[in-house]
């Protein structure tokens, strides 16, 4: 069904139409939240809050990229959660193994449809990327997540974050520079393909 028709119908209060949109965009919103928050449960909460907030404020949507509009709601939900965490820091419950030791890279996070080798590689990559992302200030993090991970163009990122285009360009360049520095510290943990690319271009 046409997205604009679904949006119009949802604006009139049709929850079914809105849920069609939810199903279409839930993955992009959840992954964005996950990269900003770094925790699956918090990301799920932020995503759910974002969709609820989106339905309530659907009449505020005045055209343009609906994806960018939704991404704005999810980044706002993430910022709210990050602020809340800053005020009331908590210790997350980590899964433990048979010896009651914490599992550093929980296997239950991985996709079950890939080989063990790929699984390890993916887990390493994800761990490194997430670690480096979390070292960025939230404003830089959201820009780099939207531009590089979600593949939004600069205008969409600017619309999502309600920042001028120049700010987006500047933040993205700074974020990439910091990420580069961070990734250099974990060079040996990066996937072989990535290491080969670097070695061939010293």
């Amino acid at each position, binding site marked *: 069904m046409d997205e604009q028709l679904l949006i119009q119908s949802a604006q009139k209060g049709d*929850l079914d139409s*809105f*849920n069609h949109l*939810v*199903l279409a965009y*839930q*993955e992009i*919103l*959840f*992954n964005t939240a*996950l*990269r900003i928050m770094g925790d*699956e449960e918090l990301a*799920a909460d932020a*995503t*759910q809050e974002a*969709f*609820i907030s989106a*339905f*309530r404020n659907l009449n505020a949507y005045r055209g343009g990229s609906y994806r960018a509009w939704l991404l704005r709601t999810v980044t706002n939900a993430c910022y709210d959660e990050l602020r809340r965490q800053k005020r009331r820091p908590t210790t997350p419950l980590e899964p433990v193994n048979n010896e009651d030791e914490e599992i550093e890279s929980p296997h239950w*996070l991985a*996709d079950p449809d890939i080989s063990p080798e790929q699984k390890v590689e*993916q887990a390493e*990559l*994800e761990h490194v*990327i997430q670690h480096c992302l979390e070292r960025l200030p939230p404003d830089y993090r959201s820009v*780099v997540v939207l*531009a*590089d*991970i979600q*593949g939004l*163009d*600069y205008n969409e990122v600017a619309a999502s974050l309600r920042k001028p285009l120049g700010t987006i*360009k*500047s933040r*993205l*360049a*700074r974020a*990439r*520079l910091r*990420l*580069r520095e961070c*990734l250099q510290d974990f060079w040996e943990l*990066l*996937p072989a393909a*990535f290491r080969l*690319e*670097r070695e061939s*271009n010293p």
Partner: protein
Amino acid sequence: MNQQPSFRDIEKVSAYLDNQLSRVDRARLEAKLAVEPRLQEVLLELRQASSLLKNTPWRRVPHNFTVTPKMMGMRPPLPRSIPVFRLASLTAAVMLFLSFAFNFLAPIAAAPSLASESQRIQSGGGCGNDNPADCGDVAMEAPAFGFGGTPGEVTAMSVASLPQETTTPEPTPEAGLRIKEQPTEAANIAPTDLPAPNTSPSEKAQTQPVLNTLQMGLILLVIVFGGAAILIRQLNILRWRKRQ
């Protein structure tokens, strides 16, 4: 030309990676890249960092994030008949309350005059059988409470008309004999001769039914209209949930 590139150049390199430079800026930067190996390094590193992020594993959603009416705090619309039923049950309830209020307040308002009346009668009212006209005088002179008189006046008048024989002298054997021989005026008043006291409000209430017909009718109206409103509302909620 091995100097460290400026942030402005790095920003342009970053935008160049995403094809966000104008044609003029692009040509300028490419010319600069050709002569500045350090800037080429930056380009390579930023490209690697960017491509690494683009390869970030895509995580599956743990569950669907579809929203429900409950999450949204959505409530079914009220049927048109509901306000009518609500108003009817409310009106009946108010009328019922008022009727109870009148029934309870009327005896309380009348209580002071009845109390003073019964007190006066019990104390003999300053009149005995010998002179019944005295009673009539007091009754005529004492203004009734609620008709210009006050309870204070009534009590004062009653007390003034009381017989002054309440103080008894020390009994002596002779006096005792005299008492036996000559009975007092009070002894002459037989209990059966006293006027029967009025029945108290509580006794009246006992004789009357607890609820009169009007109150019963009002209670019935409240129950019927209230019940109908609740029933219609529940049916409407069920139908709305099915539709959702």
